[in-house]
């Protein structure tokens, strides 16, 4: 602090409290709405404080879902989302750590070309090449499967670059020592590189889990069988179906449940999350 200005400090606190309130408002309103019944909204606007129907609404959605919208129970969609998010996060980490190891610790023909092929994926977000990618996945018979949901999304230039940076900072002396002791490349990888990149892997996992859980367009396209719906994509189908009849309390209960796992991960692992966020942008 440069000078003591109580007025400015007070203003800063006011700005922050107001900021937190604005940021939290949509979620508060969704939560409040999810604890009422449909008839509570008919009076005009939604109430400001939670009502008594919290457990009733949530357990109804978890167990049976909203059958009129053709979506399965929320519990099942959350399970699908969990499987997809874990497959994407773990898959991305495995293939990226392997390819970074190959690029940093080996010299082979066409090494640069391989590097550029990985780099180019940065410039091809799925939204941009959506139609042909869908055709490829359909041609491979991967529609309505966990493989179709996750495999097309697990190539990752960002993760490969991150591990490349990490490996480049590991001193050559370690590699030399390992080689003198007779360790082959895979033993070196397993016993030295992986333990040394443990925190980077954890930080990346937090970011990638959120990325995987929040996927929307891709699951929407590749799942037509409702038993593979994910919660983030399913909620839109639900909101569409209820637009006519006001079932907003149930849609908001689903929205709260869709937010809960990734938000819990961010709050519980805030340090790793910030580390992952900053590192993946380098």
């Amino acid at each position, binding site marked *: 602090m440069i000078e003591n200005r109580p007025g400015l400090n007070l203003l800063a606190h006011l700005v*922050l409290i107001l900021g937190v309130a604005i*940021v939290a408002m949509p979620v508060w309103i969704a939560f409040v709405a999810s604890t009422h019944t449909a008839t509570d909204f008919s009076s005009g*606007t939604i109430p400001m404080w939670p009502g008594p129907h919290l457990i009733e609404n949530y357990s109804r959605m978890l167990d049976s879902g909203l059958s009129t919208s053709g979506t399965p129970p929320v519990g099942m969609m959350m399970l699908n989302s969990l499987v997809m998010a874990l497959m994407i996060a773990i898959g991305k980490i495995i293939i990226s750590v392997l390819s970074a190891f*190959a690029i940093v610790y080996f010299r082979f023909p066409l090494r640069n070309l391989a590097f550029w092929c990985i780099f180019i994926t940065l410039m091809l977000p799925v939204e941009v*090449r959506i*139609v042909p990618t869908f055709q490829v996945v359909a041609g491979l018979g991967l529609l309505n499967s966990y493989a179709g949901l996750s495999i*097309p999304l697990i190539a990752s230039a960002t993760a490969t670059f991150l591990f490349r940076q990490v490996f480049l900072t590991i001193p050559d002396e370690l590699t030399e020592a390992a080689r003198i002791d007779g360790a082959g490349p895979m033993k070196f990888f397993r016993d030295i590189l992986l333990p040394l990149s443990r925190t980077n892997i954890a930080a990346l996992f937090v970011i990638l889990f959120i990325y995987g859980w929040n996927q929307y367009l891709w699951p929407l396209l590749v799942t037509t069988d409702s038993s593979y719906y994910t919660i983030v994509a399913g*909620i839109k189908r639900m909101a569409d179906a209820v637009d006519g009849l006001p079932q907003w309390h149930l849609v908001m209960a689903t929205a709260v449940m869709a937010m809960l796992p990734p938000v819990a991960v961010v709050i519980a692992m805030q340090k790793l999350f910030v580390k992952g*966020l900053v590192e993946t942008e380098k």
Partner: protein
Amino acid sequence: MKRTIFRNQLLPWLLLAPQLAITFIFFIWPAAQAVWQSFLREDAFGMKSTFVGMANYWRLLDSPEYLNSLQVTAVFAVSVTILSMGFSLLLAVAVDRMIRSAQTYTTLLVWPYAVAPAVAGILWWFIFNPTIGILPYLLDQVGYNWNHISDKGDAMLLVVIASAWKQISYNFLFFVAGLQSIPASLREAAAIDGAGPVKRFFTITLPLISPTTFFLLVVNIVYAMFDTFAVIDSTTEGGPAQATNIMVYKVYFDGFVGQNLGSSGAQSVILMLIVIALTVIQFRWVEKKVEY
């Protein structure tokens, strides 16, 4: 560059195989398909396609709908970027003054990052719902009749707010990091020379965080152009009357709903060129990271 390396020749290819296979099958091959399709035109029944050269592109650039989409995308991206970055910078400057409570405020501000764009869209769609939403009710008290289902401006405002809200935590974290990297001695020197807080902000703080600002500018534009598909699809679906039909939404809509593969392919190629340009800008920034 490593001095110590392993000499195997086959092993690196085996290690790279999964990454390269997925990249080829799901990234490079479809992208090449998009480029190829952009030069073709299918007949009305989708039975055969003929090579038409650049015709799909010329037709796009002639189409008022596409030009409208370009304009909508520009307005949308600039609004989201300015709103989200402005709000985040204000919060970051305020947190930078805090000593004991900084951590608490940060925790309370970072979690929207984890909310899916589709869910963010649904939340704001509900808040702005013309019949039961809380904000239209308040706006009605001051005499404004909010209706994002029929009013173009209201619809645009809705998707801008929902998209900017989601991005606040990201911008906030990077601004806080940028502010904390400014040496306190600089601000102290300015304070001794008699510069007040406002003057210090504009002559010292703002210029010194300009690398962060520039980086966030690129990231936010990329976000607004490509990652907001879910916000649009879960709320306005491009309407009313194309008012929120941003380019990524139009690629999807023309390809899947309109089944116009040639036009959708040409739009994909234009978008790829934009991403490539933005990625190059971003990487040049990383290389030339300004140091003080």
